[in-house]
C-alpha cells in the first residue's frame, strides 16, 4: 500500500496543476480564442493521433526527430573527430584555441536567417542549424574526454609499442566511451531543442511549426496538445539517453553505484 502511494506521488502535483487550469479556463476564460482546457487539449491530441494526412502526429513528429537526428549525426560526428584531434594533440588545441573561442559563443539561432538565405525553407536549413548547435558541445566534451584518459593506459600503449593509430583505436576511444555518452546525451537534448526552435522561428515543417500554426489559426486546444506532446517526446528521449549513458558506464567497467553520480 505504501509502495503504491509512493508510486502515485509524482502524479499528484501535475494533476493538481492541470485541474486548477481546467477550472480556471472554464470559469474565467470560457470560450476564449487564446486558451483551452487540458481536457480539450487531450481530445485534440487524440484527434491528431488518428489523423493520417501530412498533419498527423506521427509524420510531423517523425520530421522533427529525423531532422534532429540527422543534424546531430553531422554535427556530433564532426565535433567528435575534431575534438579527438584537439584532445590528443595539445599543440593543435593551443593553436585553435582562439578560433574556437571566437566561433563558439555565436548563438545557434543567429544562423537561422543565414540558413534561410542559403538553403531556403526545408530540411537542409534545419539540418545546418542543428549541426552547428551540436558541433560545439561535442567538440568541447570530446576534447576533455580525450585529455582525461588515464595516463597509465597511455603508458601501457607505449610499452606495447603501439602506433598512434592503434593507440587511438584500441586504448583511447574505448576509455572515452562513458564520457562520450554523456556528451551525446547533451547533444541529443540540444538537437531536439534547436530543431523545435528552428521550426517555430522559420521552417514551415515539424512539431514547432504545427504548434505555431495552431496558435495562429486560433486553435488553442491543438496548440496545447502539441506543447504537451513536445514535452512528452523530450522526456522520453531524455530517459532513453540516460539509460544508454548508464549502460555504457556499467559496460565499460564503472560500478553500478557510480551511475547515480554520472546521472546527476
Amino acid at each position, binding site marked *: 500500500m505504501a509502495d503504491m502511494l509512493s508510486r502515485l*506521488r509524482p502524479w499528484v502535483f501535475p494533476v493538481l496543476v492541470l485541474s486548477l487550469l481546467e477550472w480556471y479556463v472554464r470559469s474565467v476564460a470560457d470560450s476564449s480564442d487564446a486558451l483551452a482546457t487540458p481536457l480539450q487539449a487531450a481530445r485534440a491530441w487524440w484527434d491528431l493521433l488518428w489523423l493520417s494526412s501530412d498533419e498527423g502526429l506521427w509524420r510531423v513528429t517523425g520530421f522533427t526527430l529525423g531532422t534532429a537526428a540527422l543534424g546531430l549525426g553531422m554535427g556530433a560526428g564532426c565535433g567528435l573527430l575534431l575534438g579527438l584531434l584537439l584532445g590528443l594533440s595539445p599543440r593543435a588545441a593551443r593553436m585553435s584555441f582562439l578560433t574556437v573561442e571566437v566561433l563558439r559563443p555565436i*548563438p545557434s*539561432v543567429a544562423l537561422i*536567417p543565414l540558413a534561410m538565405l542559403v538553403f531556403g525553407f526545408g530540411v537542409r536549413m534545419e539540418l545546418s542549424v542543428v549541426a552547428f548547435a551540436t558541433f560545439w558541445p561535442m567538440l568541447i566534451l570530446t576534447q576533455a574526454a580525450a585529455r582525461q584518459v588515464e595516463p597509465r593506459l597511455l603508458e601501457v600503449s607505449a610499452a606495447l609499442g603501439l602506433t598512434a593509430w592503434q593507440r587511438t583505436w584500441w586504448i583511447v576511444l574505448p576509455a572515452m566511451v562513458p564520457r562520450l555518452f554523456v556528451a551525446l546525451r547533451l547533444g541529443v537534448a540540444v538537437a531536439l531543442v534547436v530543431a523545435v526552435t528552428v521550426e517555430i522561428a522559420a521552417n514551415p515543417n515539424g512539431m514547432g511549426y504545427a504548434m505555431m500554426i495552431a496558435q495562429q489559426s486560433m486553435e488553442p486546444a491543438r496548440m496545447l496538445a502539441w506543447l504537451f506532446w513536445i514535452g512528452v517526446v523530450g522526456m522520453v528521449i531524455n530517459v532513453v539517453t540516460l539509460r544508454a549513458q548508464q549502460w555504457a558506464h556499467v559496460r565499460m567497467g564503472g560500478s553500478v553505484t557510480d551511475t547515480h553520480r554520472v546521472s546527476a
Partner: protein
Amino acid sequence: MNLLAQALRRCLVWWESIAVLLIFLSVWWLASHGDWISRVFLPTPEATWASLAQGFSAEPGQDAADLGQASWQTFVRMFLGWGLASLIGVGLGALIGMSQIARQWIAPTLEFLRPLPASAVLPLAISIFGLSPGMVLFVVSFGAMWPVLLATVQGLAQVEPRLKEVAAGLQLSRLAFVWKIGLPSTLPDILAGMRLSMTVSLIVAVVGEMIASQAGLGQAILLAARSFRASELFAGIVLLGALGFVSNALLAGLEQRLLRWQRP
C-alpha cells in the same frame, strides 16, 4: 635565461593561436573574393566590417539598421530576462529545496519540464500576452529559469549533513538555515546554472525578437536576410557572437570572485 625562454614560448603559443584565426579569416576572404561561394550568401570580410561600422554610426531615418541600438535592446532583454530568471529560480528552488516533502512531490514534475524547449512556450505566451515586449521577457525568463531552479533544488538536497547538524545545534530556523548555510554552500551549483541560463536567455531573446517583431538583433538579422543584405546579416551574427562572448566572460569573472572562498 629560463624565464626568458618561458616568456618566449608563451608568446609563441599566442602567436600560433592568432595565426590560426588569421588563416580562418583569410580563407573567408578568399572564399568571398574568389567567388567560391556566392556573395549573396557570403559577404567579404570588408563588407561585413563596413556594415558594422555603418550600423554603429547610423542616423535615424537612414536605410541601414541601427545595429548599436539593436545590440543594446537585445542585451537589455537578455539581461533582464536572465536576472528575473535567476531571482525566481533561486527563490522557487529554495522554497522547494527547503523541505524534503516538497522535493518528493514536486521534483518529478520539474524533471518533466526540464527537457521542454524554452521556445516551445512562445506560441502559448503569444496567445496569452499577445506580441508584446513583456511576452518576450516572460518567455526569456521562463526558459532561463529552469537551470537555476533545478541547480538550487539539487544543491540544497546535497548540503553537507554535518552543516545541518551545526544548524540544528545553533537552533537556526529553517529560513535562517537556507539563507545562512544552504544557499552559500549551493552557490557553485547556482552559478553553474546561471551560466547555462545566460546562454538560454540569449537564444530565447533572439528567437522572441524574430517571431514577435520586437526591436533587437534578432529582428535585425531576420530583416537583413529577407532583403538579401548579407553583409548586414553577418554583422548582426558577429555582434550576437560578441554578446555571447562578453556575457560569458563577465559571468566567468563573477564566478571566480564569488567562489574565491572555496579555493584554499
